[in-house]
């Protein structure tokens, strides 16, 4: 019943080829998923990835102070004094006995410090410096390589012959979202793909079980391709552990579901089973960085099954090469039940391989995205990470976003989560296509806007 098989090619030492997933029919007419060698990956060279994390300079908050009173000052007196100075949002930090306060509009932090310093009851008034400890992970490669999560501009040197000129802000605003939540172990992302390397340091503590392998029909969804490992790591790699990369959903768990073989080929039937399995086994989000060109009612029914169970199904819109179909692939094209994800690049421009059509909901960076890879895949001379491009990389970022939304607000329905992801997107191509368009949908996702509270002002 298996019809089409195409081997991923590797180009050593630097450029490793990888593939897009598409659907093809063999001579017997059966449908299957396949990888196309459209998307290239590169290994992170040791010399590059050993680079230390660039430290970000501290900046003081423009509207907050930390005030300490002299011993003997009662709490009532202290708060009265703070209110006298028109300070608001007064919060006492017990243990260290200081007050965190908000400076009124129109007064600078420096001016307020000067005013408070005149008060005989005040021991010290200091700026409240910004910290990124919680919001920004300490993973080795986060600051420099993972522009998709936080793009600070400058150049990203992937190889001597591959230097990306980054546009600051062309990212998914991950740190702003991480200020709200970094996910929880109770939120599970089903990775319906080629399996997951469960021994990888980025993923070994993240999988809820060994999952299921619908290719070999056993309960060991170990990755024999690398694609699923890469995708799983982008969504939810072990994060803030001082090494490797950061995942979008730090603390969420992964359910590995293998529906494609070592060559990246698979059947709709396996994908259908995989979707149902993930929905039945606790996944709140299912990521499918794969697809086919043919519509199939059963595949749609599987997506509906998951959706009706409150699961958000996220799928890559698909990639095209010259002469290939540009239409959004299935299951991404099932508009009612699946979020279709297109790819942008490191400048927030549409990636020129990203399939397009009215079914595209949102986009995420999908060009040269760093993710984990099995050690056997990259070889012993390389660190187990690869750069890759494709909507396959964009989709798990949206899946991670959905997982964070479920963590933050467990009562949300799948429909609501999908809507939040859509309406909170940045319309990054509005100068060309204002509003929702066929290339980026509503725009590149903005996790901060979707998760943080919107300030109602005037």
């Amino acid at each position: 019943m298996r019809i089409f098989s195409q081997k991923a090619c590797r180009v050593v030492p630097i450029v490793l080829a990888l593939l897009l997933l598409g659907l093809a029919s063999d001579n017997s007419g059966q449908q299957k998923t396949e990888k196309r060698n459209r998307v290239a990956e590169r290994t992170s060279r040791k010399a590059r990835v050993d680079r230390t994390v660039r430290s970000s300079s501290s900046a003081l908050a423009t509207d907050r102070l930390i005030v300490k009173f002299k011993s003997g000052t009662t709490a009532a007196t202290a708060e009265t004094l703070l209110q006298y100075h028109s300070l608001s949002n007064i919060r006492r930090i017990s243990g260290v006995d200081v007050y965190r306060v908000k400076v009124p509009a129109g007064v600078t932090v420096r001016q307020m410090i000067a005013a408070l310093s005149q008060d005989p009851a005040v021991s010290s008034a200091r700026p409240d410096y910004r910290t990124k400890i919680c919001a920004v992970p300490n993973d080795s490669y986060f600051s420099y390589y993972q522009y998709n999560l936080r793009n600070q501009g400058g150049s990203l040197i992937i190889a001597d012959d591959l230097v990306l000129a980054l546009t600051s802000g062309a990212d998914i605003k991950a740190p702003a979202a991480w200020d709200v939540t970094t996910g929880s172990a109770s939120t599970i992302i089903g990775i319906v793909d080629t399996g997951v390397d469960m021994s990888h340091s980025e993923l070994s503590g993240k999988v809820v079980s060994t999952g299921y392998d619908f290719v070999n029909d056993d309960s060991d969804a170990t990755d024999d391709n690398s694609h699923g490992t890469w995708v799983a790591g982008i969504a939810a790699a072990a994060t803030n552990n001082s090494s490797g990369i950061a995942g979008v959903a730090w603390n969420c768990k992964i359910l590995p579901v293998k529906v494609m073989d070592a060559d990246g080929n698979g059947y709709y039937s396996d994908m259908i089973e995989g979707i149902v399995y993930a929905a039945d086994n606790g996944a709140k989000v299912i990521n499918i960085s794969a697809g086919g060109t043919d519509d199939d009612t059963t595949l749609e029914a599987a997506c509906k099954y998951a959706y009706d169970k409150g699961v958000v199904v996220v799928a890559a819109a698909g990639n095209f090469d010259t002469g290939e179909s540009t239409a959004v692939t299935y299951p991404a094209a099932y508009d009612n039940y699946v979020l279709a994800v297109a790819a942008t690049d490191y400048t927030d421009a549409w990636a020129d391989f990203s399939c397009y059509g009215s079914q595209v909901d949102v986009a995420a960076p999908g060009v040269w995205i760093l993710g984990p890879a099995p050690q056997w895949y990259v070889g012993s001379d390389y660190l187990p990470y690869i750069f890759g491009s494709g909507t396959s990389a964009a989709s798990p970022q949206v899946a991670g976003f959905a997982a964070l939304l479920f963590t933050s607000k467990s009562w949300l329905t799948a429909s609501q989560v999908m809507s939040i992801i859509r309406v909170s997107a940045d319309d990054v191509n509005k100068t060309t296509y204002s509003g929702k368009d066929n290339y980026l949908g509503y725009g590149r996702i903005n996790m901060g806007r979707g998760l943080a509270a919107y300030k109602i002002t005037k």
Partner: protein
Amino acid sequence: MNGRIQRVFVWPALAAVLTLLLAVPAAAEDQTGFKAGFTLEHFSRKVSWNDAAETSKSSANLFAARAEIVASPGLIFDFTAGFALSNFNGLVFDTLPISLDYEAGGASGVAIGAGLRARIARFNDFEIEGAARFVYCLKLNKTWTLDDFAVTGTATGGPTWMRVSAGPRLLYHSTDKFTPYLSVSADWFSGHFELAETIGDLSGQEKKKIKGKSLVDIALGGDYKLSDRVTLRAEAGFLPYGGGVDADLSVGFLYNF
């Protein structure tokens, strides 16, 4: 410590007050009649929400017409009706699909109130009366535009609250023109702020219950007769609570018909 304070301050003070009450001759007082005017009130309250897990500072400004009916000597009914601007900045509506942090300042409402003051005792120029009052502010829905999203959204709603106070008031009819008073009253402040959010096909509604932290209002005030017809009234109070203090301030005038 409390016992010591009572011994040192409270009992001697009460003894002094009683002595004065019995010693000073009575002053003139209103018989029956009707007064009307305006009042301007401002008060701040530390409020808690999310089952007291969160707190923020709120305030309200009231501009109201006021009527007082002196039903009999020592029995006064008053009624107020007007406009309120309530500021609940800092409230976070976090059960909406997209959380909203209210920082828009004063939200308007219609305020109505009623009160009763009844004499309990009078000793020469001193008088003790019981006073009770409530003010109810009904929201006037306002709509804010949520314009940073891929589709324009709106948030609609406003605060509704009620303040009830009751307690004794000690008045000193010092002259025919000026009557200062000191009041100590129990004070309850509670209400809710309701917001409905619509962004594209996303919608939600959240009612945030709010409750004042302070429970006792200690106020000093006075009536000053500018003429036989016109009386000015002012009052300032503070409401201590664990870790801070709230404040009240009101000014107004009444015309004696």
